[in-house]
């Protein structure tokens, strides 16, 4: 039986941003298990006040380097809601395609670069370049496809240049999109190989009953806008997001925490999947079932598996979207934007979970108030509660310090936290 243990991880590695894990076990009891967020705030909600609407998506995209497409789209959606602008069907398709490719890029980064090294006993992906070149080449191929397609549609893979309120500054040429047909097809094979690789990993057995929050899909697995739902049965409209998030401040974190029906809840791939399993593409569903992943799954380590399932889903859906785009006309006029006084919410499922942007504008289109609720911010309290339970669980199972330390890190990594984004 384990009696004493002291784990002190400052600036956890292979996650975005700065967080610490502290675990104290004394005399056979967990005295403390703590997830601290020490990231410097950048005060985006203050810096936008007084700025005209044109600046807002451009600046807000800079909240996050990994999910800049999602932030930009949530920001644009909030402004369009405030001004009463309805985007065209073509714009919606192109935005969804961008969103899918960001999901793919980010999930692959997490699966191969951040998560897999734990299962392959490596410190990073770098040694794998020599020891498992095929595996790394496969990861690169999928990631590059996602990034290249964002370049073609959004103008740039990070902090996109073409996405604006009302639509796009410029649309891709069809000839530019055609080669992505084959590349997407190849990505399906690569993802099925990825499933074989991840199927060989022993996912830690751990589970804690959790409330999962996401967008609620209607006709398709949800990514951009719609109602908000939780596995505890809460249902709200997009503009009622505050009732879904209930943010509050705690001393151990410069990111705000959130709660709903319980002390904490979780967002992300697993939450989306738990709430919208039936809307997955059949192939994605098949992959999920091969991993015995079905709703409601309460093992947070399975979030990584859920990301893999989502990769399959977004690639399959992107193939359909691409055909629709190539069949139609890739041309549209950019609508004139007339600002007016009002407020708007934009909810978008970004790789790490549901993201909300909210702005209030005066009648000249200047920001009076701004609120951004970040997925990882919504997950912090849940990570804290999981960590407490995991420490107790490890203690019961008599694990050694090294194993507890590894599992604690893997737990936080499983959430794929985007910490600087959560503090913003």
């Amino acid at each position, binding site marked *: 039986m384990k009696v004493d243990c002291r784990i002190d991880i400052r600036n956890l590695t292979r996650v975005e*941003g700065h967080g610490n894990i502290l675990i104290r076990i004394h005399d056979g009891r967990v005295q403390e298990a703590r997830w601290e967020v020490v990231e410097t705030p950048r005060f985006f909600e203050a810096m936008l006040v007084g700025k005209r609407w044109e600046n807002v998506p451009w600046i807000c995209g800079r909240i996050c380097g990994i999910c800049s497409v999602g932030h930009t789209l949530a920001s644009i959606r909030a402004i369009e809601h405030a001004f009463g602008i309805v985007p065209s069907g073509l714009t919606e398709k192109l935005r969804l395609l961008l969103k899918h490719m960001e999901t793919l890029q980010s999930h692959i980064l997490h699966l191969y670069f951040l998560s897999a090294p734990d299962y392959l006993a490596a410190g990073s992906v770098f040694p794998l370049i020599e020891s498992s070149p095929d595996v790394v080449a496969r990861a690169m191929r999928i990631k590059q496809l996602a990034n290249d397609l964002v370049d073609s549609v959004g103008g740039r893979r990070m902090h996109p240049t073409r996405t604006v309120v009302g639509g796009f500054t410029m649309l891709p040429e069809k000839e530019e999109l055609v080669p992505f047909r084959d590349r997407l097809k190849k990505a399906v094979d690569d993802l099925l190989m990825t499933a074989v690789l991840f199927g060989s990993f022993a996912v830690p057995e751990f589970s804690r009953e959790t409330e999962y929050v996401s967008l609620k899909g209607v006709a398709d697995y949800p990514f951009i806008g719609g109602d908000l739902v939780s596995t505890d049965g809460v249902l709200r409209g997009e503009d009622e997001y505050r009732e879904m998030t209930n943010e509050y401040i705690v001393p151990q974190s410069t990111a705000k925490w959130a709660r709903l029906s319980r002390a904490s809840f979780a967002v992300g791939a697993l939450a989306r999947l738990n709430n919208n399993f039936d809307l997955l593409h059949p192939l994605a569903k098949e992959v999920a079932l091969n991993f015995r992943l079905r709703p409601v799954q309460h093992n947070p380590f399975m979030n990584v598996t859920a990301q893999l399932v989502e990769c399959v889903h977004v690639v399959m859906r992107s193939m359909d979207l691409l055909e629709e785009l190539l069949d139609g006309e890739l041309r549209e006029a950019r609508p004139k934007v007339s600002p007016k006084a009002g407020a708007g919410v934009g909810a978008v499922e970004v790789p790490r979970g549901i993201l909300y942007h909210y702005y209030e504008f005066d009648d000249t289109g200047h920001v009076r108030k701004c609120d951004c609720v970040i997925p990882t911010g919504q997950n912090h309290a849940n990570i804290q509660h999981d960590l407490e339970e995991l420490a107790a669980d490890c203690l019961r199972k008599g694990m050694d310090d090294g194993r507890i330390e590894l599992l604690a890190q893997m737990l936080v990594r499983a959430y794929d936290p985007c910490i600087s984004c959560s503090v913003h």
Partner: protein
Amino acid sequence: MTDRNAGGTFLGVPLYRPRTAFFELASCEGCQLQVLNNEATLAPFLGLLEIVNFREAMTGGTDDYEIAFVEGSVSRKDEEDLLKEIRGNARVLVALGSCACFGGVNRLKDRFDPDWTRKTVYGEAPVESGRARPLEDLVAVDLKIYGCPVKKEEVEKVVTNIALGKAVVSPKYPVCMECKANENICLFDLGEPCLGPVTRAGCDSWCPNSRAGCWGCRGPAEDANVEQLEKIMQEHGFAQETILDRLECFGGFARFAEAFRRRRREGAE
């Protein structure tokens, strides 16, 4: 210790792989992510360096490095201390991206009283924060890679030149030159504001290529005539506020934005 010359050769001469570290202060970590982008050239790129510290991507970093890439601006004491420590360890310190070079978008909050800023976001909770400063306000910076985000091709060029012992020079001319060479329609003719005529080139007119006007994320070109650009933009009918928004967005034109505000204030009096 790994073989430092395992990176290959250039013209038959073995390359020296400098021990390299990546760090981030207040930022979106996007510039570091850009380093992992350009998947097609990632393996040869990594062959030029021995990465020994890169928290976002690897476990088990060390303080024994020669080159440090630092992303982000500085606003807290702990960041100041870390930056000074990095400066002490590194032979070459590279500021990576607009936040590190100029303070970046993080500076926009400094338009306001810091107490108001803190209360707007955190209410009465005690949260430490200061002005967002570029690295060179605190330590000597050897090289700057501009941009929000940085362009990977430029990072590759800089790293190649460091590995080959060649000089690293940023273009002195403005983005407008690259944009003309790319045969883009002038953004002014499309009714879009643009800082291309005064912003340092090197991005291959990234935003104008997508019909989005330049926001000046790379800071001023040498001998940039910002006042003349203001006049031209006013002739094209752009509001003063629009020009100021662009000038102050990424911090590179901070002194011009400040002068602009001063002139507006004096004009209003």
